[in-house]
């Protein structure tokens, strides 16, 4: 596959907990094309964040451990790199924005200092050059009076402004890939709309590749070109955004989309609900992880774990059942 910017194969990550080993990611393979925006969707504990953190070597070990897999970025396997090597990739070529802008900024350092640090470290700028660039970056993400704001501490910014600072920091070294992990979940909707507009603008200006991790299918619908749905540490469905929303094929994706009320439509009937709870995987599943909650479940689902199969046009799904007939696919 020549045009893949990031190529992840067979990634598995586990965590040791007092209750046993949790199998958070159980063999995830996907590619990221240059310039595209990939939405990664799933509920808490489905492995969506852990997948991306594993790729960047950000899983704390112990308790976590990447036990298998490869992640190729421009021909190099990120998972085989030393701490020092990956530090040069992280922040410089692949950078990340996290959910909570308050806990990801250092409260005792000025925003300016925190913005200048990666520029001096990765790009080799002097402090003065870095300061100018930092002000320019704050201006780019829409913060008024950027020069003065460099001397402010994180608590002097509002939640939305802090997230803009985080984005400015992530963009500071002009990375090829921006990974955003629920960057708007902690924000109000009008501020979320501002941040999404900002990312859309920067994406087209800078030609960035974006991975947007979220639980909000609405955000993904407006932002991503391709969507990947995760459940129980697996990719269970993946496809181009229009196709996935028009023809959701996995019972879980189908259920999620049907369970969402829409702000632009009246819905008087009861919400569709998926019964049961998402699993905590103390054992690597040998059957379909969604089988206990699935209303189309068949015998085969309880014996064999389905693999991702192409059902046309880059749309892949991991399910034995054809939900329109209720029989084997």
């Amino acid at each position, binding site marked *: 596959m020549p045009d893949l910017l990031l190529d992840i194969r067979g990634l598995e990550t586990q965590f040791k907990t007092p209750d046993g080993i949790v199998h958070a990611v159980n063999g995830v393979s996907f590619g990221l094309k240059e310039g595209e925006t990939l939405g990664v969707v799933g509920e808490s504990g489905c492995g969506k964040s852990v997948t991306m953190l594993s790729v960047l070597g950000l899983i704390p070990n112990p308790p976590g451990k990447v036990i298998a897999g490869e992640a190729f970025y421009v021909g190099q396997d990120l998972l085989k790199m030393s701490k020092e090597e990956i530090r040069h990739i992280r922040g410089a070529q692949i950078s990340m924005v996290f959910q909570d802008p308050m806990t990801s900024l250092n409260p005792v350092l000025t925003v300016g200092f925190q913005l200048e640090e990666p520029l001096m470290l990765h790009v080799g700028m002097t402090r003065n050059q870095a300061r100018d660039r930092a002000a320019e970056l704050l201006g780019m993400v829409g913060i008024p009076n950027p020069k003065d704001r460099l001397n402010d501490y994180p608590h002097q910014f509002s939640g939305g402004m802090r997230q803009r600072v985080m984005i400015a920091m992530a963009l500071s070294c002009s990375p090829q890939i921006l990974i955003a992990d629920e960057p708007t979940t902690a924000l109000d*909707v009008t501020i979320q*709309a501002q941040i999404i507009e900002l990312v859309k603008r920067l994406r087209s200006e800078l030609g960035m590749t974006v991975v947007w991790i979220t639980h909000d*299918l609405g955000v993904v*619908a*407006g932002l991503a070109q391709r969507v990947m749905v995760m459940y129980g540490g697996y990719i269970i469905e993946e496809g181009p955004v229009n196709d996935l929303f028009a023809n959701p094929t996995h019972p879980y994706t189908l*259920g999620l989309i049907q369970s969402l009320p*829409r702000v*632009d439509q009246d819905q008087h009937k009861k919400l569709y609900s998926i019964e049961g709870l998402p699993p905590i995987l103390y054992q690597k599943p040998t059957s379909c992880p969604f089988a206990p909650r699935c209303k189309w479940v068949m015998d085969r689902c309880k014996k064999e774990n389905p693999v991702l199969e192409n059902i046309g046009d880059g749309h892949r799904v991991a399910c034995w059942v054809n939900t329109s007939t209720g029989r084997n696919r």
Partner: protein
Amino acid sequence: MTTPNNEVLLHVKNLVKHFPINRGLLQKQVGAVRAVDDISFDIKRGETLGLVGESGCGKSTTGRSILQLYRPTSGHVEIDGVDLVRLKGEELRRMRRKMQMIFQDPYASLNPRMTVGSIIGEPLIVHNIASGKEVDDRVAHLLELVKLSPSFSTRYPHEFSGGQRQRIGVARALSLQPSFIVCDEPISALDVSIQAQVVNLLEDLQEQFNLTYLFIAHDLSMVRHISTRVAVMYLGVMVELASRADLYGSPLHPYSQALLSAVPIPDPIAETNRKRTILEGDVPSPANPPSGCRFRTRCPIADKICAESRPEFREVTTGHFVACHMVK
């Protein structure tokens, strides 16, 4: 969904809640956070009034002030014709049976040292409604109502998932057979697939017991689904109140319009064809709100008059209230 009749259950008039800001050695009051600043509305028996707005707009403070968990600075809160603001002690305590609350965070709102049975049964004992074996029977019944197994009553909150805990919170709220429940962001801490379960449960219970809800939320899609009427708050004031169809179909206040246009729709085709009003800037501080209309600093259509006088909250068409100078 039950069809609400026109009987007013709750009447809120000129409700104000200010939190004092104290400074200095003597803790002198130097100002106030004007969390709720003069709002009036009714809730009819059997209906769900959705209350939406962004963080810090005063929607939770409104809910708590109605239940007298915060004593209002001024104003009236009448339930079945009794003004709660004037009540104290035993009289107020007796009224509390009629009104309960479901909290946002199912992890923080259940005492971790109490069993599920004693959490749900405590209100019954406190209000001298039941004792001994009768409490256990009622608890078992309540657990069944919220679709949990009665055997759970001897277990502790940490043994349950977020969705199950929220059901326990619902059972506790129902134990006194209230007529009015404030649901303060009851689903926002839950996973997407669990939210629908809890919302369906709330709707079933409403139908079964003719409950009246004040449903506080920031998720405008869910509010559209569950509410009969919807009120929008901004920085301590109510800017619009209308039936669900009117508010979502033809919102009048520029803030309601911007808020609705900011909500993502889980449909890529609808998303591409959408026109968004992106609001500039952040919500100002409620300790020092703008003069006149509080929304004017971010309003796309603000005029001179908006800085000079506070717009009146008036009925524009039947049942559709709005506070905006620019709406004719």
